């Protein structure tokens, strides 16, 4: 049975390749990246063989603890969580628990993160190849550590999956989890600063961590190398105990997941509320705008990208905080404009096959494009203007106001126009409606990145006039360039906006059925 589950996972992975060549590219790029990370880890760990034991122990234990934390936390925050072998899909197969558990755990190792972790962990054996007991201890520790990583990750995924049963939780959680992810930069900066200030404490910290479930397994080799079998035995107990506890908790959760089918309830609302449809004009474009704006609010996949917006000033403030010079904050309005405008570049992909309604009603591509862009513009325009004024007021650099306004408006309108063209022609694999926002088809990241990269390059070219004016003012200090930038941003931006809507609309008119066929593939 374990072998069956493993081969099922392998088959799912292979069939994923067969669906689209892009997924091969995605996996290849991912594998290249993982190979680089693993290689540097392995080289580092082997090099530690000649370092003094205290340093080696500190690095191995703290690194291992970090990796384990990563395995536990990543499923919560990243879309990479692997639900291909979602336990609830086995509910009807009546697989005995003692087969399902090891099968799912080992299947969790099959995949880039699993293999990478395994290789890096095995490299710690090289670190401790200073004697037979130490190497043997490191090997045992590596096996226990990797198993704990996988089981911890499975435990978290299963726990979250059963929590995700309610739609409302699903909606909220996916947005809330974005916050720490976005703030990762400042958080990491703070931590690195803290570590730098307290370098002397690190060995002590490692010693403390090695007594916790996070670090116990990784410390076995070092303990035995230091000639401390009693300590090693005690930590082995901690490692085994925590692995057993993780397995037990996972077992209980899985058992519950298997008998509790997913339930999505929701309250009923009062009828007679047209909502946003009452606020927009009763035209096809107005209806599309009302629908899109409703989705920006109600669909967590959209709302998630909005969470970043209020965090933007915080991020840039932090970025400037290191030097005490907050001029970086001036970029908040153009950057936000760009982010918001570009966020509709996968709009049709988000619709998924619901796009059939647009196709069936024969709404013209121009109206479709215009409606989606207007929905974004409704909140993006005031927000960008607010950010522009706010950042100027905070920094007191009033001479930059026209230029910042120009580049912000230029970025917003150009971006909306470009995104309208991009989403009319290319689909990207995005989470399907209503599914867990964690569920994404593999390979998606790279394909999306390719479209994004090409789009952003095009954007850079289209925004050259605005960028040139900013550079000119920065070089000469003359505000004349600011006013030229404002004029260029407004006029050029609006022209590109209209051109984008028209071109995207024409493409959509001509290729609507082909677009729908692509969307049906992504189901």
């Amino acid at each position, binding site marked *: 049975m374990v072998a069956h589950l493993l081969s099922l996972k392998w088959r799912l992975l292979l069939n994923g390749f067969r669906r689209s060549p892009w997924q091969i590219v995605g996996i290849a790029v991912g594998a290249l990246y993982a190979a680089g990370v693993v290689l540097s880890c392995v080289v580092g760990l082997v090099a530690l063989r000649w370092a003094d034991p205290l340093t080696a122990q500190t690095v191995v234990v703290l690194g291992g603890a970090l990796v384990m934390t990563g395995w536990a936390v990543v499923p919560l925050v990243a879309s990479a969580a692997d639900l291909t072998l979602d336990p609830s899909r086995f509910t009807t197969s009546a697989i005995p628990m003692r087969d399902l558990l090891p099968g799912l755990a080992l299947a969790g190792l099959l995949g880039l993160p699993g293999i990478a972790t395994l290789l890096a962990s095995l490299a710690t054996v090289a670190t401790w190849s200073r004697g037979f007991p130490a190497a043997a201890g490191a090997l045992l520790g590596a096996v226990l550590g990797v198993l704990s990583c996988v089981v911890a990750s499975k435990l978290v995924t299963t726990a979250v999956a059963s929590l995700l049963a309610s*739609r409302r939780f699903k909606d909220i959680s996916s947005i809330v989890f974005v916050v720490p992810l976005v703030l990762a930069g400042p958080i990491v900066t703070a931590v690195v600063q803290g570590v730098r200030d307290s370098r002397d404490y690190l060995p002590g910290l490692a010693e403390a961590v090695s007594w916790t479930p996070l670090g116990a397994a990784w410390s076995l080799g070092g303990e035995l190398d230091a000639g401390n079998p009693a300590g090693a035995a005690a930590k082995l107990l901690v490692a085994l105990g925590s692995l057993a506890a993780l397995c037990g908790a996972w077992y209980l959760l899985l058992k519950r997941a298997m008998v509790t089918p997913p339930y*999505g*309830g*929701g309250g*009923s*609302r*009062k*009828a*007679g*509320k*047209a*909502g946003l*449809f009452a606020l927009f004009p*009763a*035209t*096809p474009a*107005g*209806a*599309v705008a*009302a*629908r899109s704006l*409703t*989705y920006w609010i*109600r*669909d967590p996949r959209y709302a998630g990208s909005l969470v970043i917006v209020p965090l933007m000033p915080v991020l840039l403030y932090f970025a400037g905080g290191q030097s005490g010079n907050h001029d970086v904050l001036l970029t908040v309005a153009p950057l936000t404009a760009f982010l918001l405008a570009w966020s509709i570049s996968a709009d049709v992909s988000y*619709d*998924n*096959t*619901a796009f*059939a*309604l*647009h*196709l*069936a*009603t*024969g*709404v*013209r591509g121009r109206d479709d494009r215009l409606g989606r862009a207007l929905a974004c513009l409704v909140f993006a325009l005031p927000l960008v203007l607010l950010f522009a004024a706010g950042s100027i007021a905070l920094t007191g650099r009033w001479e930059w106001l026209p230029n910042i306004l120009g580049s912000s408006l230029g970025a917003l309108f150009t971006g909306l126009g470009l995104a309208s063209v991009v989403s009319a022609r290319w689909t990207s694999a995005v989470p399907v*409606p*209503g599914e867990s926002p964690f569920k994404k088809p593999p390979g998606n990241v790279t394909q999306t990145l390719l479209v994004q990269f090409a789009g952003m390059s095009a954007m850079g070219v289209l925004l050259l006039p605005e960028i040139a004016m900013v550079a000119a003012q920065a070089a000469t200090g003359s505000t004349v360039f600011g006013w030229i930038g404002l004029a260029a941003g407004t006029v050029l931006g609006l022209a590109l906006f209209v051109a984008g809507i028209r071109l995207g609309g024409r493409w959509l008119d001509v290729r*609507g*059925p*082909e677009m*729908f*066929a692509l969307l*049906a593939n992504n189901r």
Partner: protein
Amino acid sequence: MTALEFGRGYAGRMSAPGPGYPAPNPSPAPPVPALALRGLAKRFGDKIAVNGISLDVPAGSFYGVVGPNGAGKTTTLSMATGLLRPDFGTAFIHGVDVWEHPLEAKKLMGILPDGVRLFDRLSGEQLVSYAGLLRGMDRAVVQSRVQDLLAALDLGKDAGTLVVDYSAGMRKKIALASALIHAPRLLVLDEPFESVDPVSAANIRGILEQYVASGGTVIVSSHVMDLVQRMCDHVAVVAAGRVLAAGTVDEVRAGASLEDRFVALVGGGTRTGGLEWLRTF
């Protein structure tokens, strides 16, 4: 049940079929069929899903399309309604070529595709209104028709609920309402009775029969022979991407029940041996 008024006023103007295609019905006298398929064919990779289907659906008929799983029913209906571009052939809605003049053709029909999502973060009434507004209809007309449709389909008390929280049968009904909002001349419904409870199914049947009685044309695809035999006046049997038989229900079934005739036409199915172990418990 609220009586639904399907005014003919909103159907939009018609235009002559584009040049280069044979007119669906060259002889002078017969009326233009509501739907005319001409040599439709579609291939997915190595698999030929639809292999040259030509069919006339007379205006005012209640037309059933039956066939085994994978027969190409959904593919054919998708190509007939402008959702899927055919490799060969085309379709005419009341004489308007779907692939030459898609916008005019789409004004004439309402469609209920099978297996597609809905904009399910909208409430039921919002979704139906959206379908109407997308077609450029007047807000007041949309509002009154939405009320009528939801009441007729017994969705009145769930009008404000998000479609994502609807049951499968309620989703079918709300999608049907979205297809009816502009009072089309032709309704193309792919599996409209799937996962619909018997009461709602009877309800939908009543609406459709009334619609046909007032001059509209309905095409349904279904697996349920019994239902098609009772409900439809015309039927086409489709298998392996081809039309095996088409005509009035009485012509096609030729005295037998539609189900027996269907099994005979499609072939196989009589063999019931070979599962002896099923009786050993």
